[in-house]
């Protein structure tokens, strides 16, 4: 079997060099790369500490009155406070004044490196641009909505969206602020941290597939409800019709819908275009009864948003549940098979 008879010292050295650089000089920032003063492990831990991981809840919210039941509280992160956290951690094992002097020399570098690592703790792809302001904001939400609807979608944008509050915004929109942390601290307490100052925050119901239903308005006695649905145009389901169609109910039977009279009411509306054949078929009925994930928008109320009901009216566009970046699931209507 033929083989190279000579292995020159150059060849050996080059192989050695290649192995050295392949192994110890990774290009990504996943390990100690020779570019950072703080070892990766510690950098990561400091960054998590900066994002308040492990900080007792009583230190985040010192009094229950600051976060009452069913409330959401927005805030700025006090960077001096989080810096003090890291300083406290750094002080561990600083025995001699020699250590102390060295640490003081090094501290500006440490702080910069932890700043950088902060953005990488929750590295989810395609989440908008990195903020340059260095300001971290967030909110704490304490609500049954957190415990009852695990998997809320939280998005923050750095400006008012001209598309409107119910528009479909791609996950990777550049106006979107990065989420640095989104975590349930308790079953009913949600903490979100944003990289930047949001103007608009969306909190959306988890998307669990296609559901049918109505909107319920409670009346004064708290046990009588008035159901209604937003009508949809049979020919253009994506058109938003700003109207409420009250849903008739069968007397004496809680929650049982009177579909015959509902259909009559729907046919009577010209904007639904259901009067063509005079009957509502199963597909048309399903279209009218579709129920979409609810999106709550938090923003500056001094901005003109129009009628509040319109703000919260969902469109027929919903986004697929299938992960980030999936195409939006837009429902369309077509006549039945022959």
């Amino acid at each position, binding site marked *: 079997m033929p083989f190279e008879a000579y292995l020159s010292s150059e060849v050996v*050295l080059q192989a050695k060099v290649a192995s050295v650089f392949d192994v110890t000089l990774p290009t990504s920032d996943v390990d100690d790369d020779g570019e950072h003063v703080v070892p990766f492990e510690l950098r990561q831990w400091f960054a998590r500490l900066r994002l308040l991981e492990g900080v007792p809840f009583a230190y985040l919210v010192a009094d229950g009155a600051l976060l009452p039941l069913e409330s959401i509280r927005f805030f700025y992160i006090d960077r001096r406070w989080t810096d003090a956290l890291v300083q406290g951690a750094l002080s561990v094992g600083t025995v001699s004044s020699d250590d102390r002097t060295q640490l003081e020399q090094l501290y500006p570098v440490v702080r910069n490196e932890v700043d950088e690592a902060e953005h990488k703790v929750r590295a989810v792809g395609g989440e908008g641009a990195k903020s340059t302001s260095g300001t971290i904001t967030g909110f704490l939400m304490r609500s049954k909505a957190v415990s009852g609807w695990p998997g809320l979608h939280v998005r923050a944008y750095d400006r008012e969206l001209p598309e409107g509050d119910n528009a479909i915004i791609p996950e990777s929109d550049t106006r979107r602020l990065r989420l640095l942390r989104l975590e349930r601290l308790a079953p009913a307490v949600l903490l979100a941290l944003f990289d930047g100052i949001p103007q608009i925050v969306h909190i959306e119901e988890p998307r669990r597939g296609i559901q049918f239903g109505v909107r319920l308005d409670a009346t004064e006695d708290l046990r009588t409800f008035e*159901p209604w649905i937003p009508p949809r145009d049979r020919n253009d389901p994506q058109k938003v019709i700003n109207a409420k169609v009250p849903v008739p109910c069968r007397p004496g039977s809680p929650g049982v819908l009177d579909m015959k009279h509902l259909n009559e009411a729907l046919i009577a509306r010209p904007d639904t275009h259901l009067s063509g054949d005079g009957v509502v078929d199963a597909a048309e009925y399903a279209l009218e009864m579709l129920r979409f994930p609810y999106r709550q928008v938090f923003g500056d109320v001094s901005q003109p948003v129009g009628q509040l009901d319109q703000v919260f009216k969902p469109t027929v566009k919903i986004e697929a549940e299938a992960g980030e970046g999936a195409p939006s699931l837009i429902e369309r209507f077509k006549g039945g098979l022959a």
Partner: protein
Amino acid sequence: MPDPGFFVLHPAVLPPLEAGGYTLEGEIEDMPAGAVESLAAQLTVSAPRFTMPPDQILSTFPPANSSGAFQATLPQIVLKRRTLPWERQPDVGDPHLPWLALVVIAEGEGTLSAEAKVEDCITPGLNPPLPHPEDRDTATSIYLEVTQTVVDGVFPAKEDARLLAHVREVDVGDSELMGADDDGFVAVVIANRLPQPDFDDQGRPLPRKYLACLINIEAQHTKLPPPPPDFHFSFDAKAIVQDPGLQATQFLDQPDKLVMGGPAPTSGAAAAVGLSAPRSPDTTTAAVRTGAAWSKNVPAVSAAAVSATAVNASEVVRDAMAANWRIPIIALEPTYRFPVLTHWSFTVSGDPTFEELMKGLDVGLIGTLVGDLPPKTPEQIEREKQRTPPPAPARLAPELAETGHLGLVHQTRRGDKVEAWFRGPASPHPTVREQPDQNGRLPLAHASDQLLLVVPDGREDVSLAAAFEIGRLLALSQPAVVNALLRWRQEQFGAARAAQLAAEALAAVAKALGAKFPARDAGLGALVGRQLVLAAASRPEKVLAPSRPLVDPGRPLTYATGDLDTLVANGLGFSLDAVRKAAEQVGVLAALADTAVASAHDREPVLTGPGFAGLQAELDRTVTALAADVLKQPPAPAPTPAPAPKPAPVPAVEAAARPRRRARKDALDRLLDSLEKPS
């Protein structure tokens, strides 16, 4: 197939052939040999009828056994085969009426049977009866037994049933439902009822359990209620479709009969008596206990009954019984049985819906207290004073500064109890972060420093001190972090020191290598090693050794001195002069071709040619020398080639070796032989 992200709704997808038995008749005409007997082949199109194969169910909503705010959503079931709801015709001539309906019944509204024969799964004495009763996919199934009241109150109208099943077509890869589906078409059956929670007297919601049943309405579609003549635009969630109190009363009165069997109460008299007759708590308890000994609901019902008074006994027992739907219905009105293909239960918690919760959220920056109101006008204050008693806050509001600082009790190092300010990491205002000074320095606090601030009101602000301490304790609480910190300090700080010290030496090395060292690096050892290897690789001859030449020169040939032509001619035993002379006439190649040289052949003659004598003399000399050496004798005088000396007596070893050598003559033997012959 629709585009990804879209779906298409179809009112129905009718099967080409409905389920049932068919006869396929084949006739062949005009055969020359006469008529051929017609063929009648039996054909059965099968479809589920009394039970739903699990693989046909893709999903249900609400999920089975889940609990949540489902009061605004219609339960639904997604089936895999798109034609499934229309594969049977409950009403002949109306192919669009599905034979499946999804009914949602609350506790106490119906009875779900145990496993029963399929003949018993349908209302007895039905007229017209179920067509083709022999067409069954299972021997036993379960049924739902409900009263006329419940059917009228809860079941969909016949006209509604056709609207409650549709087909959805989606991109196969797009939906969470489609994992098990192959063609992207699914059939969806929706219920007609929004499941409502119960409410207590104060209007607070109570969880209520519901059972969703996918039923077969074949032969019983006429029992479905007509559309109600009147309607309301609202409903009372607390309304009860069927009051099970009546049943409970009867159950209490005649537990033995119910449990042990026997004729059901046949007249209204029993019920009327049961309702009107006052009973003492003792008899109630006793009755239930007696009956409960065989009952399926022993603990719940008896526990409820023991705690119950006569007035609300029926209600309490009803609640306890409603734990499931297997309580037999004793009713004075007609009851119906519907085969249940599949069923699941869920609980409507009565919690607010997501929308209500989100709209009801109290929104504010941190530091906003609920009840933060604009300053009161003097009139308001006056009015509050007049009100008796004046409204008192349930709990003292915390002392909260505009900056988000909270006044808290603080114990100083000296043990004094004072008030201090504290603010967590969440601030209602943007804060200024410390920036490096012109030398790039940042203040760094140590464990011995105090981060306390004294604010203008004389109190201390312990926020940063608390943060420092929390950070320190969090680090200390994790041995891995402490370890990493110490290692970092030892290795990297030590390396930094070494780097400073070695700077001079390294500068010299760098100069020699022509390499540049970065200002700082994670580890000196790794740095030096890496740089050294790099530099050495670029100029190996200066660092290690010259490279080995690719080809080694041969050894010098000591015997090959002098003219090469002469050497070759002498070696091959021909006359160089003769060849040269011939070469002048015919050329070198031809002259060499004509020149004969001594050569050895296997065949005779072994050696010929002019160089023979010289070669022979040389050979003789060599052989003689070899032989003399072997025989330990002085070599014979060279000049006269004498005949080979008589072999002396050889040692035993030689003797033993000799026959072997003789056994097969090799070229040398033959050469020796040929030399001996002429001599």
